[in-house]
């Protein structure tokens, strides 16, 4: 659970991950006037790898879902904090025990320490929002689909003292909601820890409408590194280099042709290596799992509904950026009668935007009740 390698699985981000963007003008339409100005609506996507926050005031921020505890007093002194959150964990990774709370804590059995990590992350995200003291903060929190009811209560607890009212909602339902994919749609959210499939039928998805596949971005990373080691036993690379290459070039099928040359030292001297075969093999390693779940999920519905759903498939999450994945999924759908796949445009914020849309559409009276019930 205290994985040193957890942070090594990520490319150190060159740019600051905490990017503040103003949402484009049109995107504020959903900010309905009926909420009082003292309410700040917040949409949060708590991911296993990355978490994003957007608000009705137009703030949009993200950071890595990492929480680091200094290993010892020297480390603590060096860093000057008792807990380090987000991208900063990468800077100090040698001095920290780094956890990914949404992966290590919520989904697995949670310990007091995992709870503490969740709280720390929640605190950090709300700090990014920077609300005024007199504002009521009303938050919708998107949590990993497979988080149990108890996990969700735990998440709510983590936010309880930070916000005035909160709802916890499953991912990738928030993505679907944000894109108005309310009926006859299928969302495939390719995240770091899991791929989540979610069928939309005009209601809050039930258990049978959802599937979780444990082979996703992290799995691709592992596969990629294994293949690289097998192919180039003398070449040296770090996990973060591998992830960087993956995120820059990931592809399946024929989406990329020709070699992909990167530099890796061999016996101290830099040498060019073609990573295209290893990368393609690694990215394709998730496809059999996806094919199987897709088939069993869709097969569970009546034929007419199946047809409509197949025509309305959305790829979301960081892994949706794998080149050719949409075509590969369309190929899978072909076996089931054909279909149409799109890729979400803003994988980083789609979940948080959806959560915000839910917050905005929630009846003010329901918010009041949620606040009372807190």
């Amino acid at each position, binding site marked *: 659970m205290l994985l040193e390698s957890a942070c090594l699985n990520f490319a150190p981000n060159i740019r600051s991950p905490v990017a503040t963007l103003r949402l484009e003008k049109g995107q*504020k339409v959903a900010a309905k006037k009926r909420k009082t100005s003292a309410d700040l609506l917040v949409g949060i996507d708590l991911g296993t790898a990355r978490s994003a926050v957007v608000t009705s005031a137009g703030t949009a921020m993200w950071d890595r879902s990492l929480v680091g505890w200094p290993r010892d*007093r020297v480390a603590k002194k060096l860093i000057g904090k008792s807990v380090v959150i987000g991208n900063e964990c990468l800077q100090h990774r040698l001095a920290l025990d780094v956890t990914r709370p949404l992966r290590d804590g919520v989904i697995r059995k949670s310990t007091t320490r995992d709870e503490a990590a969740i709280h720390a992350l929640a605190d950090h995200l709300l700090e990014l929002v920077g609300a005024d*003291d007199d504002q009521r903060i009303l938050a919708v929190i998107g949590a990993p689909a497979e988080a149990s*009811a108890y996990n969700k*209560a735990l998440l709510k607890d983590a936010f309880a003292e930070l916000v005035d009212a909160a709802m916890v909602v499953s991912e990738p339902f928030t993505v679907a909601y944000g894109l108005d994919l*309310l009926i006859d749609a299928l969302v495939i959210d390719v995240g770091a820890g899991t791929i989540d499939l979610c069928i939309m039928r005009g209601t809050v998805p039930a258990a049978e409408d959802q599937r979780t596949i444990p082979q996703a971005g992290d799995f691709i990373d592992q596969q990629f590194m294994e293949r690289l080691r097998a192919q180039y036993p003398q070449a040296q690379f770090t996990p973060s280099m591998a992830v960087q290459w993956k995120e820059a070039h990931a592809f399946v099928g024929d989406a990329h042709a020709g070699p992909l040359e990167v530099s890796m030292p061999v016996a101290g001297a830099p040498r060019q290596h073609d990573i295209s075969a290893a990368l393609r093999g690694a990215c394709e390693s998730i496809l059999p799992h996806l094919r199987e779940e897709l088939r069993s999920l869709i097969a569970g519905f009546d034929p007419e509904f199946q047809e409509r759903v197949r025509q309305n498939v959305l790829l979301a999450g960081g892994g949706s950026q794998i080149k050719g994945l949409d075509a590969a999924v369309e190929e899978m759908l072909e076996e089931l009668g054909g279909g149409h796949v799109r890729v979400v*445009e803003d994988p980083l914020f789609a979940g948080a935007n959806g959560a915000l849309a839910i917050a905005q559409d929630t009846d003010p009276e329901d918010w009041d009740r949620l606040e009372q019930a807190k």
Partner: protein
Amino acid sequence: MGDQCARGDLATSLSSHLLSIDPSLNLLGENSGDPERAAAQRIKGRIVAGLAEDNLRGHARPSSVKHTARCGAKARRRQAHWLGASGVVLLLVLLGINMLGKSAPDSPPTESPHPLLVPPAMALPTPAPPAEEAEQFLRAERQVPLAQLFQLGVRHIVLDPGHGGRDPGTIGPRTGIMEKEITLDICLQAAAELRARNGQLKIDLTRTEDRAVGLRERARFANERGADLFVSVHINSFAGGDYGGIETYYLGFPSDPDAEAAASRENVGGTARIGEFEALIARLGATLKEEESVHLAELLQARLYGGMRTLRGPKVGDYGVRRAPFLVLLDSEMPSVLAEVSLINDPEEEVRLTQATYRGEIAHQLALGLEDYIAAIDDAVEAALSGR
């Protein structure tokens, strides 16, 4: 290959995605007039109402927590400092450092008699004096009965029964007994025992019934009451064959030797300037809290493990005093520990834990450990004052 999804989906609150994908399904389409739009809005309304309902039902908390939680939203902007910034507090720390330097210059924090003379009760009656006054006061320090002046010693303990409400903690696989029930009963019994033996002592519990309390709320509870000690009580559980053992945790990190060194250095001539101490105090605040937490953890661990061993024989593991960044300890402003007072995976132990008398035994050891600590502090204060 699929096309990229258009930007601004949020914007067109009823987007045309469905329309663009399958014109026969233009339920949300803008060109089909208001009825469809209204239908889509109804779907959204229904979904969102369902979500609110789920959340209200699923994780509702008893209303007794309401106002604390409400305050908490604002309170998060308020940084908690154990020692605060007032001049009197500063002074007190300087005095503490002086005594620390004189009474036990090189002794590690865990040795007895315990060198620390500055207890965590920091609710001080006088306003902050200006710097010169403080220096004068500092010089006059030898004649001042500090213990009386600053009410040294442990007066107020907060016991924190782990888990509660919808959070059962570990559930005994054979009996179904829940950690939250055990911890509550042990705390109630320990509180009763401590009160009965020491009328001066104030004991509060973060919960006295089966209800959910947030981790930070627990720490805040103790902070708001100005408690001197905080003890969170849990039951250990390990997956697999290992039954686990008795262990007591304190927060985080060992004391900072640099801060100690700085303290003794600065105090040799008593000439340190007030301003120079500000950074030091921030560090010392953490250090003192931590040292005291270790001391408390050691005394509790000795009693809890000793008692358990007497009752159960050598089978029980002594996991000792350990540190970990528990949030419930992070936010508390006084010496704080988290004690795993029993182990639920051991089948025999699980059955015993269902018995109030056995829980009473554990409570008894907890009370003894706390009394050991109170006595150690009293001794240290007395020794320091009489030695002057």
